[in-house]
């Protein structure tokens, strides 16, 4: 090797590109965390969601009244004293009831979010990866279920599960909230399938289901996490809506929906009966949505504009806020 340097300078140390990039880019999880923490509304959303879950499950331990134990000395009492949020017309403690309802609603939301997103991932990935008839049949099913509003189907089916466990209700809700996500998953699978690393796996002889499990689903993790989050909010809205009409959670169970239903009539005369459960509901769903939105920004900053990814340093910040949940 002939070099011009005679004064001891070392020409080109390692035989390859040195690892400048490695030192430069912080690890992905740290980057995601940093992006997330920068978004105040998302952070607030997360804190509120955690607090609400904690309150719903822990408050019975220290609250002065039990939800099923009426106080016969206090009917329709406004908030104050030991009845923090007032009482109903038969003397039930509104705080205890709302916490109880919150418990049920949040549990249902969480379960529906998990089940429906998993279902969407399986159906969408299978339809997208295998294509052909698998795809056609599954997508026709999705179309069919989209034509029938889930509200209608569950309302019609509700007489069948009267007196049954609320878990059936969870399954029904989950069974009707995966379709749009499945479509998105399918679309992403179609692009991922053409990615070179998936092709590489195929050309090295990897089995289709292993490719889906190893290369396709993990690469949609951000989407699925975000979607599960947003679905929790949407499921709580669906649950309360159905329960509002008496098609969902059945007495003696209470949910935020049944509480709001019984409070609506007296929204003007005894406002706490309506505003307390409604307030908790709105605050919870809003927090979940803000959290989901922040997650989207942090996990997937280029959510819509994948073609923009290869643009150089040029772009400072293409902040993109995703779309909110469906009511």
């Amino acid at each position, binding site marked *: *090797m*002939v*070099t*011009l*340097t005679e*004064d001891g*300078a070392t*020409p*080109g*140390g*390692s*035989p*390859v*590109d*040195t*690892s*400048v*990039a*490695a030192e*430069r*880019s*912080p690890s*992905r999880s740290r*980057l995601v965390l*940093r*992006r997330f923490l920068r978004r105040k509304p998302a952070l607030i959303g997360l804190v509120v969601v955690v607090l609400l879950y904690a309150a719903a499950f822990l408050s019975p331990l220290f609250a002065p009244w039990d939800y099923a134990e009426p106080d016969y000395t206090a009917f329709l009492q406004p908030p104050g004293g030991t009845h923090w949020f007032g009482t109903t017309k038969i003397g039930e403690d509104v705080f205890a009831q709302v916490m109880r309802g919150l418990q049920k609603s949040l549990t249902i939301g969480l379960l529906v979010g998990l089940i429906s997103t998993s279902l969407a991932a399986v159906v969408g990935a299978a339809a997208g990866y295998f294509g052909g008839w698998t795809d056609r049949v599954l997508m026709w099913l999705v179309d069919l279920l989209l034509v029938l509003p889930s509200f209608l189907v569950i309302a019609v089916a509700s007489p069948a599960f009267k007196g049954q466990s609320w878990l059936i209700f969870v399954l029904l809700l989950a069974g009707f909230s995966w379709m749009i996500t499945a479509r998105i998953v399918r679309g992403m699978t179609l692009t991922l399938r053409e*990615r*070179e*690393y998936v*092709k*590489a*796996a195929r*050309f*090295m*002889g*990897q089995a289709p289901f292993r490719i889906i499990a*190893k*290369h396709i689903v*993990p*690469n949609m*993790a951000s989407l699925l996490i975000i979607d599960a989050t947003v679905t929790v909010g949407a499921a709580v809205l669906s649950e309360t809506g159905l329960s509002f009409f008496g098609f969902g959670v059945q007495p003696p169970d209470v949910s935020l929906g049944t509480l709001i239903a019984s409070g609506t009539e007296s929204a003007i005369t005894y406002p706490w009966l309506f505003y307390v459960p409604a307030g908790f509901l709105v605050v919870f769903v809003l927090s979940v949505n803000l959290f989901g939105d922040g997650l989207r920004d942090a996990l997937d900053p280029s959510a819509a504009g994948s*073609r923009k990814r*290869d643009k*150089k*340093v*040029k*772009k*400072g*910040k293409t902040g993109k806020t995703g779309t909110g949940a469906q009511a």
Partner: protein
Amino acid sequence: MTAAETLFEGPDAERAGPVLEVDDLRVSFPSEDGRVQAVRGLSYRVAPGEVLGIVGESGSGKSVSSLAVMGLLPDSARVTGSIRFRGRELLGLSDGELSKIRGRRVSMVFQDPLSALTPVYTVGDQIAEALLTHGRGRVSRQQADRRAVELLDLVGIPNAAARAKAFPHEFSGGMRQRAVIAIAIANDPDLIIADEPTTALDVTVQAQVLEVLKTAQEVTGAGIVIITHDLGVVAGFADRLLVMYAGRAVETGDVHEVYRRPRMPYTLGLLGSIPRLDAAQKQPLVPIEGQPPSLTDLPPGCPFAPRCPMVVDACLTEEPPLFQVDGSVDATGDGTGHRAACIRSAEIAEREPDAAEVFGAEVIGEPEIAAVPRAEREVVLDVADLVKTFTVTKGSVFKRKVGAVHAVDGISFDIRAGETLGLVGESGCGKTTTLMEILGLEELMGGSISVLGKRAAELDKAGRKAIRRDMQVVFQDPQASLDPRMPIGDVLAEPMQVHGYPAADIAKRVPELLDLVGLRREHVGRYPAEFSGGQRQRIGIARALALNPRLIVLDEPVSALDVSIQAGVINLLDRLKAELGLSYLFVAHDLSVVRHIADRVAVMYLGKIVEIGDVDAVFGAPRHPYTQALLSAIPIPDPVKERQRERIILEGDLPSPANPPTGCRFHTRCFLYASLPEERRRICVETEPALEGSGDHSDACHFARSRAVVEPMADDHR
């Protein structure tokens, strides 16, 4: 040029002085890791009618600086310094004031023609809009429409009046870029900025578009700033050159001067890192180690110092300004002479060293097996009469067949042990389809594929899996070819797991593989995102090597990399072939790379091989007119040669493979056909030529005659 004369006033001699003066331009952006100093004190000027080439790799700030001139940077950008157009300061002007200058006095051509036009308006309307915007009250709608058609005609769109009514998606990439140029010259500007105008295009189309740009420059007399990463493109076009690195100019001067006597090691390395189409013997390729620095917090000193083989302690203390190169005269005193930002440029001037000498590149030898005559070597891959058609369907509910695309229409070739076959052709010629058929090992529509003597169609599932072990693939995009969720240790282990290697063997093999491709063993736990493009491509190569294959199929393995990185990867491939006796099927559109790495080459056009043979024979004396045109379209990074070359410009775009021309598929674009008398033309239209030849050189042309289109490089070059 009569049409042009009525359209434009021509060069404006009255106004002297530079059209554009950029002084100490600085641009920075906010980013995740702090402020990115994308441009750090850039100064240049453009005289009327002058063509300035700005050359740099991605991230060098070349595009950002031109967007700053146009005032099109996003709001988050901080821009300081001075940009004067015809003496008028542009920085600080409002959007309204700038919009009076943009498109009328200064216009721009962008890189990606596919997204540069609004999809919902017709091409004619978008050109007319440029005229109407600046001629409000003076130009009528009808006048603008008529002029739009004239402009489309000028930039070489056939049947312009009808095509003006078409939407952008009905235009090919090359045609869209012509339309963008038509918009740019619509108002007879004084300055045109072209930002990588040909990067997204095929070579033959690139040659056409460069030709159109030259015409545009002639008719408008505008100054041109052409931004590119390709030293070949500017060699024949630019008058002056400015090389950018890490947001600054590192060398500038007359284009002949800079190419002949580069005075900055970076320029020297850049010129040495490009494989030359005109190299008779194999030239060593100069890899520039490392990668450009991060522009968020630059250490003091010359930003190129970490990659520079000539670095001395003084380089690390202070960033050198642009020095006047000894012996060059700055005639006008306005900084247009030859200048370089290197404290050791005087030493370079004294010794006039070769890039290979400075960077220590050597020619890599051939594998041992290359000594065995070709006919006696084992056939690694044999493709015979391969056919692949795609059906074109319409409708989403009830699909119906409306036609068939003959993507690959009966091609045959073989690859012997220790040999590299280059497969070249424009996009849409069927080379990628051929590759996917070979890799897919599935049932063929016609013909046969055999790997190491075993016919793929006759194998069962297990047999196919066994073949996959011997045949591996490296993809084009290092970003997309590695699963971002897997640490590279797992990436390298995956093929071995699939083929049932014991865990202990895998654990031993992974570090070996990293050594083999020149990566550090400690990096086994890192994720692909933590590596640079060149490193990722090395990981992709390591994965392909994991199973000790005999054949590696390479799909444009270096085209996504910057030139300085590209050389390192090519050298690695060369070395691996020599050491491991591998065979390569190398698909590429860059003929210079193919010339460097391949032993044999096959040229494809519309699903057919039109010429195949030994690389020196095919490139040295091409016989098929298509090969000749293809070779003549490749720019050579040598201003003198580039300006003297006779260039064959092909007409039009690739015909649709759904409806290929009869007879010889190339006759619709063939210059030879055009020069034939009527009675001899008939055979081209009616009879499909067979692939015939002598020795290791065959072609498929009825009237083949060899014609040297690339003059070999003289030995005493540089």
